[in-house]
């Protein structure tokens, strides 16, 4: 049904795609995998006619839909041709209700006004629209009120609404999915994948990108592997082994980080009691937790159960209620500056908004907080009150971090905005480590990061914990990763501590705990 021949795309001097070809039949689910920056998103955007593709000089190669060539220059044309796309960044309007978002530009009007006036002036029928939206939601097995405002909903629900919007279109023939499961937890993802299967059975072709290999293997019929903008393989899922696919993707094999030890100490660095943080969609409603000195503690919960609010509350990004004892000091002033002075550092999950200074160089980003707070890197031969930094020392430190953490870049002066997600994450961790914190809280460190970078990042945590004795709290929805690096894993449920489990505890116990069922120790 869809065929691509020799697609090439360059952004200025960088080549994003070169000579990519692939074909999809009706009713086929086709997987597109590759590391960050291998050109997956670009390919989808080309198919969808996204405006920035056109603005940056278009692309070479030809696309055929049912044998007819096409070249869309705006998403509207793609939509008219029956192509739908679910974006990696949400394209929902927060001030509109769920129903309005789903039926945007396809609203149903009253029959009378439909006939009397042109379509654009017809009076909308809220009941018909509600009904239509409800049908789309039911299809996804989602029980929410379509009259709710979208902005108030949790991340994973919003993802579902985005999908509902695309699948509720009658003329949908090809669905493009850009990392749709990145923000979903395992249960939601499973549910979602079943829906896709169902959709494909009705004859819709689906092009699907994901980082999660097992997921792709479970769902797709065929898959295409991209590496640095080239097709390096196209195979039937049933015949290819996981190892072979990984090898094609990386060209190198991945050694997994991991540790199997446990240090039972009783010397809490941080004690919180009845800790409440009002984070929208992730409320903590009274958490009691001791974080032991020198441990790596995992925090896991379904989305919406509060694991992300812990770090935001501790560092003072959001106000908290309850008591917090840090190194013996009860309720110290709760602000980022005060907490950093006490050796606590927080890496937010919101890498795009609260992650980095994208236009600054790698070395400046790494040195930033140490320069601001610890007076490190100040020029040694100038009076300190001038507060002029020593550029050479900053560069040296940047170069050392790049070597040590294997940051893939052109040099310490490259702006971090040009790096891929995984490498940006490494820069963030290097930045935090430059402060030599005693306690680090990290939210979703591996979200949206390819598997090679993921292992490096987990390795970094183990190394700093080992060498500097840094206490680390990792809030993540990836149980597998937490089990590999943590000493203990705390399971949160509905904003409270539900259980603390050993990383070696079996899967069944974990899934019981995460879904809030009683756990016997």
């Amino acid at each position, binding site marked *: 049904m869809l065929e691509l021949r020799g697609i090439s795309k360059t952004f200025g001097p960088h080549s994003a795609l070169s000579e990519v070809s692939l074909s999809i039949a009706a009713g086929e689910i086709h997987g597109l995998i590759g590391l960050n920056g291998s050109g997956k998103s670009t390919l989808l955007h080309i198919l969808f006619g996204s405006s920035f593709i056109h603005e940056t000089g278009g692309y070479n190669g030809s696309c055929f839909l049912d044998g007819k060539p096409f070249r869309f220059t705006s998403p509207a044309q793609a939509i008219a041709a029956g192509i739908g796309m679910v974006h990696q960044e949400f394209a929902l309007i927060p001030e509109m209700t769920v129903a309005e978002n789903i039926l945007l530009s396809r609203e149903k009007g009253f029959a009378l006004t439909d006939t009397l006036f042109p379509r654009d002036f017809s009076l909308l029928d809220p009941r018909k629209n509600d009904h239509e939206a409800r049908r789309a939601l039911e299809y996804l097995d989602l029980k929410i009120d379509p009259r709710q405002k979208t902005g108030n909903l949790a991340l994973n629900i919003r993802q579902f609404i985005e999908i509902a919007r695309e699948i509720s279109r009658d003329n949908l023939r090809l669905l493009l999915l850009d990392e749709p499961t990145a923000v979903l937890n395992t249960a939601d993802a499973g549910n979602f994948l079943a829906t896709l299967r169902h959709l494909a059975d009705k004859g819709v072709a689906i092009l699907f990108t994901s980082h999660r290999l097992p997921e792709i293997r479970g769902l797709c019929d065929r898959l295409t592997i991209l590496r640095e903008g080239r097709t390096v393989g196209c195979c039937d899922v049933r015949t290819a082994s996981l190892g072979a696919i990984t090898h094609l993707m990386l060209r190198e094999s991945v050694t997994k980080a991991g540790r199997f030890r446990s240090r039972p100490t009783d010397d809490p660095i941080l004690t919180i009691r009845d800790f409440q943080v009002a984070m929208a969609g992730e409320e903590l409603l009274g958490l009691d937790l001791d974080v032991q000195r020198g441990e790596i503690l995992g925090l896991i919960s379904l989305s919406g159960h509060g694991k992300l609010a812990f770090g935001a509350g501790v560092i003072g990004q959001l106000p908290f209620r309850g008591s917090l004892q840090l190194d013996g000091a009860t309720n110290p002033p709760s602000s*980022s500056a005060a907490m950093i002075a006490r050796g606590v550092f927080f890496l937010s999950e919101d890498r795009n908004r609260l992650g*980095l200074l*994208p236009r600054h160089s790698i070395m400046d980003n790494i040195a930033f907080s140490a320069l*601001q707070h610890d007076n490190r890197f100040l020029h040694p031969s100038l009076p300190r009150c001038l507060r002029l930094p020593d550029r050479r020392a900053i560069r040296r430190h940047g170069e050392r971090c790049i070597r040590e953490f294997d940051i893939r870049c052109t040099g310490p002066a490259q702006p971090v905005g040009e790096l891929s997600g995984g490498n940006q994450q490494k820069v963030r961790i290097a930045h935090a480590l430059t402060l030599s914190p005693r306690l680090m809280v990290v939210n979703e460190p591996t979200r949206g990061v390819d598997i090679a970078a993921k292992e490096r990042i987990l390795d970094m945590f183990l190394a700093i914990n080992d060498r500097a004795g840094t206490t680390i709290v990792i809030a993540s929805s990836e149980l597998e990763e937490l089990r590999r690096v943590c000493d203990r894993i705390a399971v949160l449920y509905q904003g409270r501590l539900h259980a603390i489990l050993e990383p070696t505890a079996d899967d069944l116990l974990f899934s019981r705990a995460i879904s809030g069922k009683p756990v016997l120790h």
Partner: protein
Amino acid sequence: MIVRARHVPQMVIAIFLCAMAGGALLLEIPLPWVINDALVRLAMNGVLVLSLVPMLNVGIGINFGLPVAIVAGLLGLCLTVNWRLTGSLGFTMALALSTVIAVCLGEVYGRLLNRVRGREEITATFIGFSFIPLTNFFWATAPFTNPAMLWPIGGIGMRPTIGLKSYFAKILNTWMPLEIGPLTIPCGLLLFFGLCCLLVHLFFKTTPGLAILAIGENEGYARLCGIDVDRMRRLAVILSTVIGAVGICVYAQSYGFIELYDAPMMMAFPAASAILIGGSTTGRATVAQVVAGTFLFHTMYVLSGPLANDLLVPEMAEIFRLMMTTGVILFAMLHHGGRHARPSETL
């Protein structure tokens, strides 16, 4: 990674400037005079343009409230004249007094701007506009005693323009002039401007300077890194106000007059145009952009007068200047769109 027409205004102005220079040659307008005037105007207006840099870099945007800074400078100048201090002592005193007043006014101005997150530019415009009638009231009733500043009849209230001839007019312009044939290069004035540029450039290398740049780029992140965002924004506003106050002192000594009442009202706009022509975007401005922008903008000013006088009706020069000034600001707003512009797409 969107390719945009980045340097369109600079190119338009440069082409326009070349055309005007060609016209000037044809009409035999003396070139040394043009160069000399262009250099004087560069340094005379440059400090005012420079004053926009800290606020742009902290992410507040263009300081359309420049009249606040200018009034601080005017107060300093008036006090000096009132005490009949002349020569370099007078000018130094004017700078010192202006700085002190600018720090106080800047603190209040900064606090106001911290309360209107996201709408700073329009608020600043109206702070500037509403500050003018307030100061007009002050000028009309201020208890100054030097008769050179007061209305000759009645002896109460300040004159709209106060001549500085017997105080410190042209003190920088005539300091260390370098004569090369028919050219007179105002070395002292350029040196003073260069020093101001160097200080601002160095400030953005210090840790508070870097913190200000970081806030301009990603405020939420800077806050998470423990930067006191409100304090740093106030610091940037105070710096802008102080440099602006110094700027009007330089301007006044070069012009030879202090202009009171409504004169500061519109002074923010040419400065804003100049820095935008230099290629600064909302969120980042460098000293090099200030120098380039001021030079382009004011050389155009210098050339347009005699050209229009010779070729068209004399009024056209002023109309052209105004079209350029406001047109460039409008263009910059449309193209860069400030912080509300679509973020560059990352892939």
